Every structure is written in structure tokens, then in C-alpha cells.
């Protein structure tokens, strides 16, 4: 029965405002780029079905607003995430500098069971913009990723669909691995929901 259970992978995309989170998601799911996506307000998600090693999974990609002050509202979605994607803009140093705090904030709020092994993926976006504008080198980004336990790193362009497909394939794979490792843990899902179930049914005494 459990093998036939539908697999839903929850992926959270984080990063400063304007780095291209919405654009990346749309490029991946809808295969298009529009220069006039609006700044994200609140939160939204897109779903996409993909085959990972012959297993059909549904990815639910959560996109939230990048401005810090809206983040306190985003925490509701972090729970139960299977993978977190950290995006920065290779032409914007600050967006790279904040990656660390995005990661920390995520780990605090989502509180995954094993933070050390929780899968992240880092995307350096907007590589289509001229080399002369670029301020964060791939080397620097890779060093960062190494330092965090070997986070996979991709340089992408949502605009020109560079590396987007490849990046999300790794995201899907790592999310699935994470989801499956959760399944092996027997205590987590069982203790709490029992009480909730009882409450929902109401007490007839």
C-alpha cells in the first residue's frame, strides 16, 4: 500500500527579492520567461510531475516574497519541506552574502529532524548578464557550498533557460531521497496526529 502512495515533494525556494525565484520556477514548470512577472506578495506554489528513476513524483515548488519583513509569514510553508533551494543573483553581492542567513532561518523554522543532512541546492542566477557585471565568481560560490557540507551548486539563467532543467532534476532527486529517509522513521508521524484525530472527531462523553 505504502509503495502506491502518491509522492509529493515539497520544495521551498528562498533568496533575496529580485534574484529571480519566480522566474526560475516559471521557467522550469511553464518553460517560459517573462520580463514582467510581478514582485511576489505572500506565497504561491506551482506543481510539476516528474519521473525520478521511473518513479512519478509531484513537486510542489513554493515561492515566497524575498523582502525580509515578509519572511515571518513564510514560515508556515517551511514545515515538511523536502528540499530548500537558495537562490542568489551572480551580479549582486549582497544577495550572495545573505544566503547564509536564509539557510539558517530555514533550518530554524522548518526544524528538520536532521539539519546536517537536510538537502539544500544553491543556484547562482542571471548568468546571462554580461561577464563585466558579474560580481560573485563561481569559485567563491562553490567554496561556500563546500563549506556547508557539499551543497550542489548550479549557475543558471531563468531568462535563457540555462541549467534550469538540470538543477531541478537534482533538486527532485535530493528531495525524494529526503522524503524516503523520513519514511523510515516510525515515531515521527505517529505520536502527534493521534491526538489531533481524536480532537477532530469530538468527544462523545
Amino acid at each position, binding site marked *: 500500500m505504502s509503495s502506491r502512495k502518491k509522492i509529493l515533494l515539497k520544495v521551498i525556494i528562498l533568496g533575496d527579492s529580485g534574484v529571480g525565484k519566480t522566474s526560475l520556477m516559471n521557467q522550469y514548470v511553464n518553460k517560459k520567461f517573462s520580463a514582467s512577472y510581478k514582485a511576489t506578495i505572500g506565497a504561491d*506554489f506551482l506543481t510539476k510531475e516528474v519521473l525520478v528513476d521511473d518513479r512519478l513524483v509531484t513537486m510542489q515548488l513554493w515561492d515566497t*516574497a524575498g523582502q525580509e519583513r515578509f519572511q515571518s509569514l513564510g514560515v508556515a510553508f517551511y514545515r515538511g519541506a523536502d528540499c530548500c533551494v537558495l537562490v542568489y543573483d551572480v551580479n549582486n553581492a549582497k544577495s550572495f552574502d545573505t544566503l547564509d542567513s536564509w539557510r539558517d532561518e530555514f533550518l530554524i523554522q522548518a526544524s528538520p529532524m536532521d539539519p546536517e543532512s537536510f538537502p539544500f541546492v544553491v543556484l547562482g542566477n542571471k548568468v546571462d548578464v554580461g561577464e563585466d557585471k558579474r560580481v560573485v565568481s563561481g569559485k567563491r560560490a562553490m567554496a561556500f557550498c563546500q563549506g556547508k557540507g557539499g551543497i550542489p551548486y548550479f549557475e543558471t539563467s531563468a531568462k535563457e533557460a540555462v541549467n534550469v532543467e538540470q538543477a531541478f532534476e537534482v533538486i527532485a532527486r535530493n528531495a525524494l531521497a529526503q522524503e524516503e529517509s523520513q519514511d523510515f522513521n516510525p515515531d515521527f508521524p505517529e505520536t502527534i496526529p493521534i491526538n489531533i484525530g481524536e480532537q477532530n472527531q469530538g468527544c462523545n462523553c
Partner: protein
Amino acid sequence: MSSSTEPQVEDATREPPSPPSPTASFYDMSDDEEGGYSTIRHSKSGKGVKLLYTKSKVYVHPSPSARDNIPGYVAVMQQKPARDLIASPPTSPGSSSSVGRRAEINSLLLAWVPEKSLGEANTIYTKVESNDSGEPPKQSHLVPAPPVTTSHSSSVGAYAFAIPVTDIFSILVRPPNTGWWFGSIVINTRAGDSFPALFFHDSECQSTIDQRKKLQRENFSISGEDGEGMFWGGDEVIRWLKKFVTVERSSQEPSVYLIEPSESDRVGFGSAGKPTPDKVRNVLEGKHKDDPAQPRKGSVNDGDPVMKALKQARWSFLEKMSQVTTFTRRTAQAVAENKNLPPQVRRLMQDPQVQTVSDEFDSARLYLARWAMGIAEQSERERSQRIWTAKDMLEMEETGVGEFEVLDMEAQDLSLMDKRKPVTVEEWNGYFNVGTGVLEKTPDEVKDRIFHGGLDPDDSVRKEAWLFILGVYEWTSTKQERHAKMNSLRDEYIRLKGAWWERMLDEQGTLEEREWWKEQKMRIEKDVHRTDRHIPLFAGEDIPHPDPDSPFAEAGTNVHLEQMKDMLLTYNEYNRDLGYVQGMSDLLAPIYAIEQDDAVAFWGFVKFMERMERNFLRDQSGMRLQLVTLDQLCQLLDPKLYDHLQKVDSTNFFFFFRMLLVWFKREFSFPDILRLYETLWTDYLSSNFHLFIAMAILEKHRNVIIDHLKGFDEVLKYVNELSGTIDLPSTLIRAEALFRRFQRTVEAIDRKSSFPGMPKPELRQRLPVPPPTSPGVDGRPRRASQAATGSSAGASASGRAPTVGDHVAAGIGAQKEKVVTPELRALLSREVPKLDKQEVKDHGGGVGA
């Protein structure tokens, strides 16, 4: 034969104009005996019609509840004008000239009569129904004539109707699918009207059961008319009609049977030619293809094409009520597989893209829920033509269908009173003294007009009127004073703008300040380039970017975008405690679009921001307050929906965050936003009327939410995707109805509690202190778990801003007792909640803090 319907009998031959010839009679065609016909002459002339064919257990489904189904008979009748009956004996057989045929058709009616209204005629119906010869009975069976109509609006519902066959343009036929749905037919008239679907409950209908048996005996098959499915009641109707008129099944539109088609109809729907989308739409909408009003080009192209096409699905529209509430996975699949679905829709369902959606049940449920809602939305627009009258709604209330419908009824009443025109510039100018320019009406009268009618979008009235309702101008001012005010505001704007300009050049201030400022500039730049670019005003990229290092240097810009950036940077400087926050560009754009003058728009925006500041605070306390208020409003007005939202973890109302933050800017079209904003700015009923707009949107979809949405993510997705589909005029009306209901409820509760010293509504709303710990994993404020009896008074008197937890009346959940919290009471106030400077300093998160 007595009948209450008698006086309503109309002369069916009045239209179309060609009068029946004296030779007209069914028997001209059918070689029947003259003797039978003479019965009619003996009858009380014109008071009866001859029942040729009929079938029982044909239902109208007026509501989703099977309880409301009305059983009746579908019948073909022949009407004979009295004068002909008296003046002319039937002519000899064989005179089937085209004139005669025409006239004979003219006398035919296709009718539906409810069982209940049959009275004595019951036995005649039964008798004619059981005639299994396949031919009309030899004997004339006279029954009372149902009222003849060519449009359903007047008489359909619990009442009989009859349509002259000559007035029928087409019949849509949807065969039954056992266990899934009843077979049904829809009659489309030449006038472009559609009658409600008639559902054939074949298993209850003795004649159909008998006919099936007979078919099986004779042909070893029980397939029906087209040899495709099982024989059913609808087949019979088509067979009857074929006896008298040309009935052609459209090869392109297999569910469409054209009645007496013209040559051009044949080309349009029949063997020749491919159906164009317009033609398909005509059929689906029951429109005659020659209708000059067609086609409506363009309107179909915007928005999600799948949604649009599905909205066109006439079938679903006609069955809307049952579908909206009874959609299940099975029907969803059935719909996708149904051969009788209009090809346009079927194609879309087969589209691989759509198919993947359907395969995935969870997404399919959302998708179909949206579809069903789209159908309901369309029905709302066409409500005036529907059989749903206020009276029906009242009856539904008695049968307990739900508050939702009752609310719509209230809304309808309001809409009748509300036929007010927008305020034009002439009317507006007329409000003011010609000499002094002083307003000669009360501000309330003007606000009433704007609230209900809006300002004319096609003249220049908004340019000036907005400055009044935004508060840039005083209502009591003279023309001269306004002139002076504007001059000083312009100077001030230039000064403020100069200040940040200097900052940019001189790099003054602390390092932190400079960093902040650079970041803000970047943020504004990015957001302006993402704000309303589909509006022509902001679309152009015709001038080079002033800053070659900008990420937008390549794309270019236009003067309006540059003005927007200047205004927002100026605001960032003007209100340093808060600074620019994402979402503000959305709020400025409409004002700038109307004023098209940066200084004027800037001050309009400043005024708008005074009330919106609370939305942008760093700690989100202002947004929390509004979400909590919405939560309470929902508990009070729609406990059933609230229960459901609780079950699906959605009572944080986060799914309304976007709508509240920028006042529905992302949900409505730009022109609708202009109308909505001016309505809200009047504060005519409540300074928090936007929460009633939110409630109105929620109520509209409450059935879908309750029936179909099973998780927080589904609710969020569903609500996000309402964007672009919400009808503004009906939403405004519903919001007003909700406000009135809210007001009555509060009054009732106050009376009941007869609490002598009810706390006065707090006019200036205070912000809740953010929750002491983090807001909790679900992002919602924590709530007091124990009843805070006598909730408000203490907290507000103490000077401590009450926390949300203090206010949310427990008790609501526990005892189901209705409690008016201070947040709710504040909704009755028309005074705009504004923050003081200190509050902005404390919570703003700008550089001034």
C-alpha cells in the same frame, strides 16, 4: 376540463408572422382520419390543445438538491387557432403543399408540464403516453394548453411551458450515462434563449421501460436514436419531432440537433465546412448563428484559455447548480470522457497538458472546482435571465439550502436599488459653487454617490475627485484654497526630491544609512520594472536608462517608470521610519495613472499610505490585526465555512494576505482597481470595507471551498488563482450586503446581551503587540485558549495595546455564542485607522527607527 392555465393561453401563431392556412392540420400530413379531428371542433374552441406525444418522469432540476426536482411530462401538442377551427373544415388528405406543411408546423408545440399541475388531464397524459404505435393517437386527446412562450424567463420554474416548434433553433441532446447522470435535453430558441435542461429519469418512466423491452424483443438491441447508446427518453423526443419537421444532427456538433435548419445553418453545423470557434460558441450559447451580436471577438482570448473555453460549456452551465455542489471525481472523469461534451471542451480535456492535470486527482479537484465556480460565475452574470428569482431564493431558505443563497438574494435586492450611474465630470462640477468652488453638498452625499456609482472612467472626473476622497483637498475648501495648497505641495515635492538627490550625489549620512539607501534604490528600481507593465502607460521601453550600470540598462525604460521611481524614492525619504516596502509600487501606480503628474500623484500616494502604513510594518502587526479581524468576521458571519477552514488549517487566513496587503491589486484588472479604490477611499460604510470585500469574495466561493478543498495548500492555490476571475460589480454589492448583515448581527447581539455599558468602539485602532515568542509554526498569532470574559475594556483602558490573544473572544469556539470583539466593533467605524509617528518609528523597520 378546468384548468388554471387557461387564461394564459396565447395565440401561438402570432409569431412567426406567416398565418396558418385554412388547410392547416396535422392530418394534411399524416393521412389520418378526419373523424378524429372533428373532436377538436366540438371542443370549447381554443381552450384545449391536442396531445400527440408525451412522456412522463421528465424533471426540471432547479437546485442542487434532488429534493427540489420537479417531475413533469414532456409533450408534443398541436394547437389549433379557434378561428380556423370554426371557419374551415379540414381539407382532404394529400394537400401537403409547402404552405400547408408550414402552417401545420406552426401549430405544433413542444411543451413541459409539471405533474402537479395536470389535474384531471392526468389520465389523458397517461393514456397518450402508453400509446405505443409510434404514431399520434387516432383519437384526439385534448388537454389544457400550457402557456406558450418563446423565452423562459417569465414562466419557467414550477410552471408549465410550451414553445412553438417553429421557434426552436436547436435541441442539445445529452444521452444518459447510467449511474452518473440522467439524459437531458436543452431547447434553444431562435431568439437565442435557452430553456432549462429537462432530465429524463428513464428508470422511473414506464413508457421508456416498455419501449426498451419492445426494442429488445424486436431488434435484439436496445440502442437508441443514433444506434450509439441505450434507448432513452430523449431519443423519443427527437423521433417525435422528426415526424413533423426537419431535424438534422450536426455532424460537427453531435449533441446538437438543428430544427428546420436554413441553408446557412446547415453549412454552419452540418456536413459542410469546419466549425469555427465562433460557431461552436454560438451553439453552446444557444445563439442563432446569424445573430448580428455575434461573434464577440477578443473576449475569449484573454486569461486562461482552458478556463475560458470551459466557461463556454453550455451544458455545464445549464447544470451548474447540481455540478457546483456535487462534483466528484467520478463525474470529473465522466465529463472528460463524455462524447457529448462540446468538442471544443473535449479537445481541451484531451490536451496532454490538461490531461496530466486530470490524472493527478488532487490538482484535478482544484481544477474542476474552479471550473464549476466559473460556471457559477457566469450564471451570476446572467442571473437576470435565469429562473432564479428572489422568490425562489426565499423558498430555498426555508428548505435550508444555506445562507449563501440567501445572501445572494439580499445582494440582488440591493442591486435593484443600485442602478446608479457613475458620477460624470458635469455632475461633479455641479456639486460646487460656481463662484467660490465650495462644495454645496455634504461630503457624505458625495461619498454615497461615489461609493455606489463610482466615478466615470471615461472623463477627467477622477483627476480632481480623487484628491478629495484621498484627503489631499479639504471638503470645505474654496477653489482658491485648493489652488494655493497645490502650489505649496508642488514646492514641497520638489524640495523632498532634491533631498534624496543630494544624498545620492554627496553620499552623506552614516555608512548604515547609505547602505540602506542604496538597497532601497535598487529595490524600487526592480519593483517599478515589475509593476503594471501591461498598462500602456508603463509598457514602453523607449528611452535609454539614465544609469548605465542598472540591470535594466539594456532593456530601456520610459518616462513614467522613471517618474514612479522618483516618487517612491521621495516617499522613502519622506517617511524614513518605514521606507519603501514591496507592494507600495502597486499602490502608487493607479494614482499616478490617473493624475499623470508626479507631484500631485505623490501627495495622493502619501495620503493613501497614511492608512496603508500598517500593512508594511516590519513586524507585520498591522497585517496580523487585519487577518485576525477577517478570521473573526468569518466566524461571525459564516460559522460553517469557518469550521471547514479550521479543519484544513487555514484560519490564519494567510491566503488573503496578498489581497489585503495591496487591496486586491493583483486580483482585479486595472480599470476595476480604479473603481474599487475610489469606493474604498470613501469610507462610506466602514473604513475597513476592504475586509467586507474579502469576505464577499470568500462567501462567493464558500461552497467550493467546503466541498472540495482539503488542505491549506489547496485553499491557498485556489484563492490565488481567483486572480482575474472575480466580477467586481457583484462583489461590491455582495460586500455591501455583508456589511449590512454584519451591522444587524452586531445590533442583535448588543440588544440580546443588553449590556448597559457596552464599551464604545475604539476609533483609533491600536496595533496588537506582536506575539511574545515567534508567531508559531503556522505563522498565525497565538490565541488565548481560555475565555477572556469581558474582553476588551480592561486591556484598552490600561493603555497597553491589547494583544490579539486578548481580543479573540474565546467563547466563540467553546459555546458557539456570538461575541463582538473590539476588532469587529471597529469595523462599524468610518474613521480611518492611522498609526502615530511613534508607532511607525517603533515598528516601521526603516532607517529612522
